[in-house]
């Protein structure tokens, strides 16, 4: 292009404003096409290209960031014009013919024109807030909460299990555990201390009224522990002749 399109034109240059009125190069083309006053489908692309190029070159100064699209279109139209005027070169693959390019431009112009008409039709419709008005005082109905409980059958059955367990645990008294304590053993053995001169089997010193089971086992253990206590205190002596053999005891300083 020429110096006329200097990029440093003042922001509010009148010629810039000339382009500001258009929504892009197709819109400008459409505006020019309307000046031909013929059906868009029948418009002469050649004449339109001339109009466009004349319009663009008529602009003395142009801000480049606005004009770039317009200049690309101008270049393309100049190319199209040359293609339309000259006979088509031998067909090259993928290269549309001049007529196809012109038809495509027709299509684009018609499409944009249709959308512009549609936009105008939308704006001419019955617009809410301009032509009709909605209810000014919408009412809100406070929602009523309907509780929905989430509970699975498993939860329910587990709960019954808990209840059932608790119910039966009440009649299920845990019996006071009976056993023969170390104190019991000490008290019992104390009556014999000093009166056992000969080695005697520990089992002979167990309380007489022994029941079976836990009580007996605890009596054996506690009596044995009691003998250890008494031996430590130096009041009796203990002796075992072999592993797992009988435990023998006698008073301290006994005859043996």
């Amino acid at each position, binding site marked *: 292009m020429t110096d006329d399109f200097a990029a440093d034109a003042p922001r509010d240059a009148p010629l810039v404003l000339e382009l500001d009125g258009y929504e892009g190069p197709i819109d400008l083309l459409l505006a020019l096409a309307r000046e031909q006053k013929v059906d868009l489908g029948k418009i002469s692309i050649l004449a339109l290209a001339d109009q466009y190029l004349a319009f663009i070159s008529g602009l003395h100064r142009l801000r480049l960031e606005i004009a770039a699209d317009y200049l690309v279109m101008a270049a393309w139209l100049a190319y199209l014009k040359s293609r339309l005027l000259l006979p088509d070169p031998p067909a090259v693959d993928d290269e549309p013919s001049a007529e196809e390019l012109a038809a495509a431009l027709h299509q684009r112009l018609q499409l944009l024109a249709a959308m512009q008409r549609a936009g105008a039709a939308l704006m001419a419709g019955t617009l809410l807030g301009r032509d009709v008005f909605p209810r000014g005082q919408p009412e809100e109905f406070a929602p009523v909460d309907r509780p929905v*409980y989430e509970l699975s*059958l498993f939860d329910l059955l587990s709960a019954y299990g808990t209840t059932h367990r608790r119910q039966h645990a009440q009649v*299920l008294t845990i019996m006071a555990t009976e056993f023969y304590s170390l104190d019991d053993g000490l008290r019992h053995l104390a009556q014999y201390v000093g009166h056992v001169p000969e080695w005697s089997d520990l089992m002979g010193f167990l309380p007489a009224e022994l029941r079976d089971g836990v009580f007996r086992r605890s009596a054996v253990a506690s009596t044995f522990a009691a003998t250890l206590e008494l031996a430590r205190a130096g009041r009796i002596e203990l002796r075992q002749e072999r592993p797992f053999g009988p435990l023998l005891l006698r008073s301290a300083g006994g005859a043996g």
Partner: protein
Amino acid sequence: MSGRGDDLRVIEALLFAAAEPVAEEVLSLRLGDGADVPALLAELAAFYEGRGVNLVRRGGGWVFATAPDLAPALRQERAVVRGLSRAAVETLAVIAYHQPITRAEIEAIRGVALGRGTLDRLLEAGWVRPKGRRESPGRPLNWVTTPNFLTHFGLGDLRELPGVDELRAAGLLEIGPTVLTDHDPRTAETPADE
């Protein structure tokens, strides 16, 4: 606006679109001197009487409002998921297994008094209902579960509730080891269960 009919339509539209009640003076200003606003309002109010929307006086002006008698139909229910307390779940289970059952019996089985809201919650959930009275002193209410209870828990009928044996087999009656004794009081106390 020419005729009375148009005036009526304008008042109707103005009141409909207004964000708050509109005073008669404002309507008069909008319609011009020719309009008999009080008469028009009376006509409009009469027209809307008995409809779903009424024209009513409120706050010194006129306003459209939905008919008060429709309030229950207009309110929208909103599902709110709630949890049930352990007490409520256990109570429901006891009712399910022992129905018909009185409140006192529920308390005896659970070993604890029923809290105030427990039965109410279950009633509200639609899972239990009172059904008749026990012919015993004080004639206490009998409680039973509802068809809704069966539906919620996917049961065809009450016989589909697992029995005690099945609960035990599923480990729901298990009780942990307790004391070191030679004889297990569990077996001694509940011989019938085995």
